[in-house]
């Protein structure tokens, strides 16, 4: 092994520790959401990674160097953090490693023709594909060069198993979910879920559903921004999801369902929610629910969901109340034994 590989491993270990120490912050780094698909490096504050050296206080930095424990920048209590630029892919790898998310085992695959390759020889074929070596061997065996001794390389299509996932995201967009912060939390949780699924599946298709008492399918932009008037019938969103999933045969697609709500569902609707969920769980690879509510509302509904989750290994219910809950929520959703 190269000496540099050893040192790189040591550096990456330090980086991993640093990122681990700041996990809740890292998950929320604005760079991820601002440009979800770019591979631009992300600026994150991590403790103690750069080798420090003596340098002048930055211009305009009035607090720089006021000594005897009085210094430090605001919001930097530890006084030990530095900003580093790390490629997004690097952070993601470390993050998923740190969250100890298991590798997903896709259940369904599709065979897709991905190219051709030469395998073996045949007796007929175009001259450019003549296998000179094999022809020579055959000729020597037969003692004569004839049509029968010609051998051509055979081309066969190569089929590769491609794992595909469809993710239906259902968001309660009733009046109570309109708050900026709640939408932000949903957005972050969704982002990381999708990033994580993309690590397993070559192909991930996203479908977006919003609902109040009635559901509609929307595009990604509207999913995060739109709000509807009226109360909450979560079942409407689930029923539409069920409808959508009918278009994805289970032998090819691994289906995921993620729902976010403040759980303040109409009581009369709750039995229908549970029934629909039970039905859906039969065909789903995984279903997750994010409870986005800092108040006391919706506890009854939440408890009923948790009862249901206790019976299904591939259904998880978690709370995302504050920003720092996103990391643990992900861990709760996808950690452990989910296959």
């Amino acid at each position: 092994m190269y000496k540099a590989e050893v040192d790189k491993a040591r550096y990456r270990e330090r980086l991993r520790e640093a990122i681990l120490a700041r996990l809740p912050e890292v998950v929320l780094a604005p760079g991820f959401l601002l440009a979800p698909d770019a591979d631009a490096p992300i600026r994150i504050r991590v403790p103690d990674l750069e080798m420090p050296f003596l340098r002048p206080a930055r211009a305009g930095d009035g607090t720089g160097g006021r000594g005897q424990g009085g210094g430090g920048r605001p919001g930097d209590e530890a006084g030990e953090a530095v900003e580093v630029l790390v490629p997004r892919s690097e952070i993601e790898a470390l993050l998923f490693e740190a969250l100890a998310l298991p590798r997903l085992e896709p259940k369904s695959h599709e065979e897709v023709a991905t190219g051709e390759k030469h395998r073996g020889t045949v007796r007929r074929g175009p001259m450019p594909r003549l296998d000179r070596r094999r022809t020579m061997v055959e000729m020597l065996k037969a003692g004569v060069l004839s049509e029968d001794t010609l051998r051509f390389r055979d081309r066969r299509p190569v089929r590769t198993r491609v794992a595909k996932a469809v993710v239906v995201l259902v968001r309660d967009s009733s009046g109570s979910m309109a708050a900026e912060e709640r939408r932000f939390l949903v957005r972050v949780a969704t982002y990381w879920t999708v990033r994580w699924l993309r690590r397993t599946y070559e192909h991930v298709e996203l479908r977006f559903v919003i609902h109040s008492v009635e559901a509609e399918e929307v595009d990604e932009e509207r999913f995060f921004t739109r709000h509807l008037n009226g109360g909450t019938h979560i079942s409407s969103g689930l029923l539409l999801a069920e409808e959508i999933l009918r278009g994805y045969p289970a032998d090819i697609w691994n289906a995921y369902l993620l729902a976010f709500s403040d759980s303040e569902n109409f009581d009369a609707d709750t039995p229908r929610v549970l029934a629909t969920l039970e039905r859906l769980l039969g065909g789903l690879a995984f279903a997750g629910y994010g409870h986005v509510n800092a108040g006391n509302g919706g506890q009854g509904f939440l408890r009923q969901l948790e009862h249901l989750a206790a019976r299904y290994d591939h259904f998880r219910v978690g709370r995302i109340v504050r920003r720092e809950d996103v990391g643990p929520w992900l861990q709760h959703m996808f950690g452990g034994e989910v296959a």
Partner: protein
Amino acid sequence: MRQRWETYLPKLSAAARALGLQPIPSVYEEVDRETLHELAAYGIPGVHGHWLYGRAYWQHESAHDRGLETIYELVCHLEPAVTYLLADNRWEEQLFVLAHVQGHLDFFGRNHLMRQQNPHMHSVMAAASERWHGYAAAFGAEAVEAVMDVGFMFLSHVNPHAGHKRPAETPTHAVVEELMRPRGRFDDLLDLGRPATKTDGRVVQGRVEVHRGDALALPKEAAALERWLAEQEAQGVGEEDVLYVLAHATSPPLPEWKRDILIGMRELALYFLPQRRTKLLDEGWASYWEGQLLDALELPEEAHLISAEMHSRIAGTPSAGGRLNVYWLGCELFRHLERQGRDVFEIAAVEDDQSFLRTWLDEDFVRRHRVLAEAVYGDEGKRLFQDPTAPTKKPWEVWRDRLAESFAVAPALPVRVHENTRGRFVLHTVDGQVPDDVYARRVLGGLRRLFDDDRDVVLRWGEGRGEELRA
């Protein structure tokens, strides 16, 4: 098997000599990309590992993967020099790289700073690394790393003249030297211009008489003063090369193994110092000659095309990635000087980057290459010939000086050893510059772990109470 480019080596050497170059002997080795990235991270073979090198290696790797960087070669100034070439280059590319390398090899033997490099540094480092592995076995890899950390923190402060000269003057020294100065009859006249705030006094019959400003608790006997001065020198007071003082002048001395690591890291930093001071000259010199060398060979047209393409890609534009392209600047400035009939060989021998620019960048060159200023300084560069803000210097002169200044190799925040006794280790920033709080605390923490005792470790930048940090 003999590579095609190898057959051109003798011709290339002959062409170099015919043009007046004297490349030092080199061995040539083709390596894969990983090895080249590794060598680029450490600088020379044999260096003891540290995660900072791992990061550099990783940065080379990822810059390469994203298409931002290609390393074609690495030439180590050793004896003999070692030229590492990337194995998967085409032979035409390899030939171009070799022509470029001849410039480096000549520069190593020609430039007065490069000639000071210890050409056996790889052996020195390999032997050191072997000892340090022993320390790691005895005291733990973490402990070795912690000492190396301090080495890295003060790497930019090294000075080849540390210990060989009088310590740089501290305010205290200035006062003492003033006191010790023999007085003549007319000194009172000379003293008239001196500011009254400065400590004033003289040595009369072996005793120090201080008239005013006696803020410094100085010995009162002249002999004691001499002893005091010698003591200060022995403690490295006034020294800016912190690693030198840590390795050689702390009281009590650090454990032998810590000193060994600090000395080794300082040696390595001193080895690279000439390179850091001549980056522009070295790359400019190599880019200036590469085309001339290849022109002297009889090559297939294809090879000429490839080398022209590579030259223009590397040295063809004033800015590279938004920063000044040193290949371009050095090469163009040498061409400019050649057109003026200057002795470029002499210039390559005696200058460093800073003096090269300050001495030889003239108005004609700046006018010819306004694009340079604009590329690097944007709108500010456009005003270069109009802006009347500097009355004593022409704008282009101001700009030239600033450009030269940007090539200065100096620590970001120079410090001097202010006190170095059993109980106290005090650094003082030069010119009272205020340090960055966060980094300074961590540096002091590093020193604290290095000493591993109860001495005060302090960084000061003024005389007031609030103007210091403690570990």
